[in-house]
């Protein structure tokens, strides 16, 4: 934020976001079935089509506010008294400007919204690749989430993971899964969009590798199939992809900020396959090129064909 004008603009946008969300929250608390916007997953006329919101050309917080507003407000997902888990990507010991982790602004804003919607607790964790405390701190997420009122949970505490059967998994039949994923009422999946040297792309589906204990099992067995298999157990309540400056090479860790391009985009959807399909297109791929997207679509875990998705586009500038 460089100028007074920027400040006022952002402030107004934030204010607008707040007021809308607050209204939605009040409304939803009394009559949960009726919210300001069309409930996700259906269209007028009764045809079931997942909603995907795509927002461009503003700052992350404004885009997040816009996306949630289009989905009926945070109250459509978080009811008073519920426990919320936010799973960002904070796997790497690098600062926010390197784009290897979800931006702390997105996580912090989401925590505030959940708290305002009356969430009983908001937890944040990741089973990191780099040393966990360094990744938590240097990503900026731990401090931002705590300041916003979240509990930051250690993702490297094996006692917090529970061995869980995955009955519908093709290759992944059982996994040690973080208890917050199994027990939280609301599960918000908030990845950053990046190139991945092994999976070609990492976004919403790949981000969920950070909720299981033994990552090596995935890699050893069948990376893409295991990623798809986990979704048969529990899908996130909502997926939000931070594609403000996606990493397009040297992913998922990246080497320098030169690996990023500026797209100033944010996606949100309850359909994890649809959102990853849209993310793939942002990086110039066809959704079917990303094997786990194709596998998950084949297992009816979501829509890969964006023609069958209700895409709502917002350009804020």
């Amino acid at each position: 934020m460089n100028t007074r004008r920027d400040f006022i603009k952002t402030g107004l946008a934030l204010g607008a976001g707040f007021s809308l969300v607050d209204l939605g929250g009040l409304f939803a608390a009394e009559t949960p079935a009726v919210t300001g916007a069309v409930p996700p997953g259906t269209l007028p006329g009764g045809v079931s089509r997942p909603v995907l919101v795509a927002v461009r050309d503003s700052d992350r917080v404004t885009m997040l506010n816009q996306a949630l507003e289009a989905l009926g407000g945070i109250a459509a997902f978080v009811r008073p008294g519920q426990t919320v888990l936010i799973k960002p990507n904070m796997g790497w010991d690098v600062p926010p400007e390197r784009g290897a982790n979800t931006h702390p602004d997105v996580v912090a804003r989401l925590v505030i919204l959940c708290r305002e919607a009356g969430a009983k607790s908001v937890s944040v964790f990741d089973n990191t690749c780099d040393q966990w405390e360094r990744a938590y701190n240097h990503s900026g997420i731990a401090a931002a989430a705590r300041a916003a009122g979240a509990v930051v949970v250690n993702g490297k505490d094996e006692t917090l993971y529970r061995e869980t059967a995955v009955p519908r998994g093709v290759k992944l039949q059982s996994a040690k899964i973080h208890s917050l994923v199994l027990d939280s009422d609301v599960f918000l999946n908030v990845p950053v969009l990046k190139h991945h040297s092994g999976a070609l792309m990492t976004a919403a589906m790949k981000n969920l590798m950070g909720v299981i204990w033994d990552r090596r099992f995935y890699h050893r067995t069948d990376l893409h199939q295991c990623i798809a298999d986990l979704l048969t157990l529990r899908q996130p309540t909502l997926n939000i992809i931070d594609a403000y400056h996606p990493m397009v090479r040297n992913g998922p860790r990246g080497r320098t900020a030169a690996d990023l391009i500026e797209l100033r985009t944010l996606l949100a959807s309850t359909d994890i396959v649809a959102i990853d399909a849209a993310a793939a297109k942002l990086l110039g791929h066809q959704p079917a090129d990303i094997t786990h997207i194709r596998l998950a679509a084949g297992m009816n875990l979501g829509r890969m064909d964006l023609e069958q998705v209700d895409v709502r586009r917002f350009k804020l500038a």
Partner: protein
Amino acid sequence: MSRTSHRLRYLRIAVAVVVLAGFTAAFSDFRNLLPAGLASGLGGTQLVPAFVALLTGSAFALGGVLVVLLTLLAGRVYCSALCPLGLLQDAISRLAALVRRRPPRLPPSRPLTWVRQVFLWGTVAGVLAGWGGLTLALLDPYSNFGRIAATLFRPLFTLANNSLVTVASAAGLPGINRIELHWAGPWLLLPPAAFLVVVAGMAALRGRLYCNTVCPVGTLLGFVANRALFRLKLDRSACTKCTECLRHCKAQCIDLRSGTIDASRCVACYNCISACDQGGIGHALAWNFAPAWSTPETQLVGDPLNPCRRSFLASAVGAMAAAVVPGKLARAAAATIEEIPFLVKAGQDSSAIAPPGASSVAQFLDRCTSCQLCLSACPTQVLQPALLEYGVVGLLKPRLEYATAFCNFDCVRCGEVCPTGAIGRLGPEEKQVVQIGIADFYRDRCIVVTNGTDCAACSEHCPTKAVSTEPYGANLRLPVMNRELCIGCGACEFACPTKPRKAIVVTGRREHGWARRQVEKKAVKPRRSDDFPF
């Protein structure tokens, strides 16, 4: 009316408590909460590491010189205020005294001059012969404390933390975190544990016996203390021979019959001053630069090095010859220390990987006293004590173990805390191109080849992108290695999921090198349009 003065003793205890707590905290800092400056600052006060740093030119450390000057002024203050091993012994004898209630009255004893000389000159000879890395590591009291603390205390503190987490989470209090517990293997646990048992036994039964027989630093400082400007002196006119001072003396160095205190063994604990009701013990300015043994009345008092000139020369020359000659011969026979079989493992590549900043394995083994402060400070615990991976001279010195962790790209903590400069200080930029080893990719073991599925865990973790991927088969990506970019951090090896053998393995470099820093142009957008692609 009592003329007792407790001031000096209380001051000594206050300093000792702070110093021992500081060292214990620095060596047990399992969450890296303390600033690196605390560890390096405390380490810098230690005689042996500071001298190693100064004499090898690896750091400008005046700690050793200051300690010698302090000793020349007031005797072995170092041993009772700054040496963590000495303070640990005091803590142990205090505990033992609690059990026994009233301390036994230890009779004054003769100094074990020959034993002291053998340990001191053996150490000196070892250093002169080029085995300093081994002899200092074995006998430096600070390093011995460090190994006890890093191997035993750190895991115990972690265990205590984890028990606290269990209690707290049962009480519904989040906020503290369970930390992964690392116990060293039995063979690595044994040496410090055995040393602790021996020292604790000696401390419980005979106070500072270890410091006055085995410890070469104690003997060296005893030699200096014998010539100190201020020495403790017994006022024979005040002494009633009540023996209360003997009961509180840790060093058995007070001889009431001759009315003398052996300055070479006195560790300046000031218990005797405090214990004497008559105010019969205090500091006196010694105008002569002559050691106490030169006064005719001494019987039990002796200079550790000079019981008499002849035996001094004989023992010194004998011990030096015994250690230096074969050592020199061995080193002459081999051009470098690495070529000596068994003691240092041979070969172009090192089977143990030395930390970044070590420059070379040979230099590292010469300078490291294996205090293991770096092991305690390492946030990923990739630094583990070596057993025989470096050879015998590398026993218990840090090496990088990639089975359980890898070296964090942006971390330079081991170099920041190292008190000897064996691990040189690197800036983050330097550290990121120091090549401590190089990874080799074994295609025939790789999951992508053997299983026909994507993986690239190695490339995913690689911070320099020495491991990238290339298209392979039907829509797969196979790792490909660029050795020029590899720094040997082990992230790839750690992440590799293949069993039983990893498909990517780092081999250490004996002489650390520099990796190429790759500079890439700004990435371009896949599409020109600013519209949504869907």
